[in-house]
């Protein structure tokens, strides 16, 4: 087991975490025993080639996927053995996720998109808080725009606002600049780190970009379903 270099309260504690896909007939091993502890408030970058298991690890840690084996505690909640729906409830308010393709709800405005996780979590003043968060990412003037009326960079800002609006303990970002040009991507990264710093959330960032990884406090590298390197930046 690799220990936290910071030694504070862990946001993530994973032991021998495994993931197999493809059913019982011909299972494919995606993650082969991940041991990981991430202290609260840390920024972590996850590097690795395609197929190394980065996105699958993020899916397990963020509760999007159920592990085939091992144990996992995230933000104080034991994820081991939780059903799909229990994981969804566990995510509410605790975990924010930003994906490469933005994945905004196309039928809702920017404000409605950001308010939705707040409502699902049963939070009060969902729309006021959503508006505040959108203003914080510089989209206070775009509240009533639909995703199709926004640029790629603006859509990703909405996604960041949506992820951070419930004030989560953990923020996961999977290639957040992968669908953006380099200039817009840099602005988004700046925004992501700034908002993360303001919220104090633990950041778990998947990227191909070593330079971006170096902006994090800690860099993990994966290959063939295992963490092969774990260092402080």
């Amino acid at each position, binding site marked *: 087991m690799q220990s936290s270099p910071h030694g504070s309260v862990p946001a993530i504690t994973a032991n021998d975490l495994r993931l197999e896909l493809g059913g019982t007939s011909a299972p494919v091993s995606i993650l082969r025993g991940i041991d990981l502890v991430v202290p609260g408030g840390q920024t972590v970058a996850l590097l690795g080639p395609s197929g190394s298991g980065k*996105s699958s690890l993020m*899916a397990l840690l963020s509760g*999007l*996927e159920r592990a085939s084996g091992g144990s996992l505690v995230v933000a104080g909640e034991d994820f081991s053995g939780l059903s*799909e*729906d229990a994981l*969804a*409830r566990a*995510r*509410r*308010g605790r975990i924010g*996720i930003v*994906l490469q*393709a933005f*994945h*905004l*709800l*196309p*039928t*809702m405005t920017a404000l*409605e998109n950001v308010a*939705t*996780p707040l*409502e*699902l*979590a*049963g939070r009060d003043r969902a729309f006021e808080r959503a508006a505040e968060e959108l203003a914080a990412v510089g989209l206070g003037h775009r509240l009533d725009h639909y995703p199709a009326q926004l640029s790629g960079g603006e859509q990703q800002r909405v996604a960041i606002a*949506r992820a951070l609006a419930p004030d989560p303990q953990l923020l996961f970002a*999977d290639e957040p600049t992968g669908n953006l040009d380099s200039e817009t991507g840099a602005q988004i990264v700046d925004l992501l780190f700034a908002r993360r710093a303001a919220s104090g959330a633990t950041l778990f960032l998947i990227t191909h970009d070593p330079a971006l990884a170096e902006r994090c406090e800690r860099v993990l590298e994966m290959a063939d379903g295992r963490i092969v390197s774990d260092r402080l930046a």
Partner: protein
Amino acid sequence: MQPARQGWRVALRLALRDFSWRFRGLRLLVVCLFLGSGALAAIGTLDSAIRTQLADRGQAILGGDIEFGVYGRAASREEMAAIASLGRVSSGMRMQAMASAANGSVSPVQLKSVDGRYPLYGSLTLADGRKVGAPPPGSAWVDRGVLDRMDVAVGDTIRLGEAQVRVAGIIGNEPDRLSEGFALGAPVLVSDATLARTGLVQVGSMAQTKYRVALPPGADPSAAVEAFDRQFPTGGWTSRTRDRASPGADRLTGNMGQFLGLVGLAALVIAGIGIAGAVSSWLESRRGTIATLKVLGATSKDVLRIHLLQVFVAALVGIGAGLAAGLLAVPGLALLLKGFLPIEAGFVIDPVALLRAAVFGLLVALVFAAPPLLASRSVTAMALLRARIAPPRGLWRKAALPVGAGLAAIVALALATTEERLLTATFLASAAGVLGLLALVGIAVRRLAARLPRTRGGLALRTGVAALDRPGAPTVALVTALGFGLAAFAAIASIQTSLDAYIEGTVPTRAPDYFVLDLPRDRAEPFRTAVQEKAPGADVRTVPSLRGAILAYGPRDNLTWVSDLKDIPEGAWALRGERGLTYAADLPDGNVVTQGRWWPADYKGPPLVSVDEDLASALGLRVGDAITIALLGVERQATIASLRRIEWDDMGFNFVLVFSPGAIDDAPHNLSASVSLPPGQQGGALLRYLVQWFPTSSVIEIGGVLRQAREILSSLSVAILAAASVTVLAGLAVLLGAVAAARARETYDTVILRVLGASRGQLLGALVLRYALLALLLGLIGLGIGAGTGWFVIDRLFEFPFRPDWLVVLTVTGGGAALIVLAASLASLPVLSARPARALRSL
């Protein structure tokens, strides 16, 4: 855990926020429910309108609580005493007559005499607003149509029989008009005394005497009728009660009701298939949204609630529009069917019928949407990150209980709200059978596609066949929907062409030009002479004409009494009420003896009778059996000497029973005559002459009768087609929806193949080949199912001959099949015509 109420509240907020008010993805559901619930609302409202009007106005429509009728005579003293003991009685006569005017114009009329107590219920109103009873002696209340046709006005005089009658007013509202039934002319009302002056009424003339009775409060009309029938079983009486006030078209009305009920159910079944397909495709297109919602913390239950609420909202909109359209359609349907229905066309709202249609629509929507809705719960948040290879299996187990319970509720509601339980159950079972059959065909197609070699054949053939068995391929759903759609096409074509053939066959193209009723026997020769003078070369035929009712039949020592029968045997319509009778020395023209022998021309022995072979077959009669009839209240018995095949379609004089000379000719009676003019000759002068010189006879222009018969049958045909077209529209919507949905799912393959270098021609070829093969197979199956449905509707329900024009049926079904291929091609055009790079971005 969040409380359920809060969960529903959040789900409702998200559902409404996310809902496309242009019904994107749910349009097919809206259309299907619009058609299904619209058909049910219209049918239910019409049915309810008939019941309500009969219940509320049955007495006025019938003109009493009971009506007793008898032909050719008045009630005997005993009969009259029995009728009078029931309550207040109003009597009168109905007969076919000709009216003529001083200007030479003539018009057929339904002459109706009424007494001083008419009307017992409701009020007779003239066009000028006066409420009146029987017209004063020597005058008549006349329908405006008669006056217009004859170019006479109020105050003028018309001639009826031998009497000159003054037109004293125009009939505005005749309360019992709907119950008078089929007539060959507009009504003319006179008093009994005026009718007597016309000389039209003689013993044995073709006039019906009616006695309407207003019962004391609380008296049971049916019990009174039963008691009367028991007392006078041989009198040839017909009777009706206020709850069955419609004319003799009861059977047809009932059949129409059954047919409309089945149309509603069929539209629902088809709507259900469309809904299942529509919701499935819609949810498939929303996998990304569902996964995103789950990423944001939504549970499977939240996802189910959100989409259930959205389906509910779309269903409510479809059902609401359907109910409105159904309500608006009722006056049109009632207008089309006014010859058959005892109601007046008008705007009617029946909350129960609307509620039933709405509940049916909602149940069908929820039951058929349930499987895909329940399956939508299985979409995981990971769907955003990982492509799906195949849909998860075993979902049907989760859907089995709610869907099974919903289906049971639909069947229970259908059976609980119909009087035709057996028919409804048969239809529902048949529909389930057809669904099962089509699903099996779908599975067979898929398995066949799986077994065909994938490495041989051209790209078009290979990819075309492979697509039928690729993971997640909607082959079974597609086959079911297309099969139902094509079956609807075949059914409507076979129904329509059979009806057309029936109308063509029933309404003859060659028929006599005039029928003359009640021609006195001693005036037969002057009549022939007159016709030959005015219309040289005309063919004149006369036959003795009497009316009587069959009382008993069968072996002489074991007679079956009609009054003992609970139901009239199928095909034995001649047992209902009185029928035309005749006697003849020679076999009538166009008749062929099929069993026994025709009597010698100079036969003078015991009474014999020759019977229509169809009636004999329906009653199991043989040569040597006996038939007892009531003739003007007197029983007579004759031995069956022969059976005859009758050519009914030539519209000549045809009689089910023809007696031997001496059997019935001692009863008072007149002759009936037919006149066929030489080709091209106009009969106007002859008509005017006959009306003038044979005033007590009724001359009927057959051209008018044929036109009226054709109009009525055409209205029926249009009404049937209008109702059935609802199912075809639903079928069409389902068919197009299924193709569009299947193509949407195949878009990914198409785009990737384009990227890999497949040409548009190759892809279009693969697509056309696949859908052409499917359409061919399903066209044949749909033809079988549709023809079977058509046969059931035409032969079993309406009891018309099933004679579809197979060329038309094949063409229409083939057209439907071609539409499938065309729709599939059109749905693919945007992807096929876009540049590969652009198409790739659209994925």
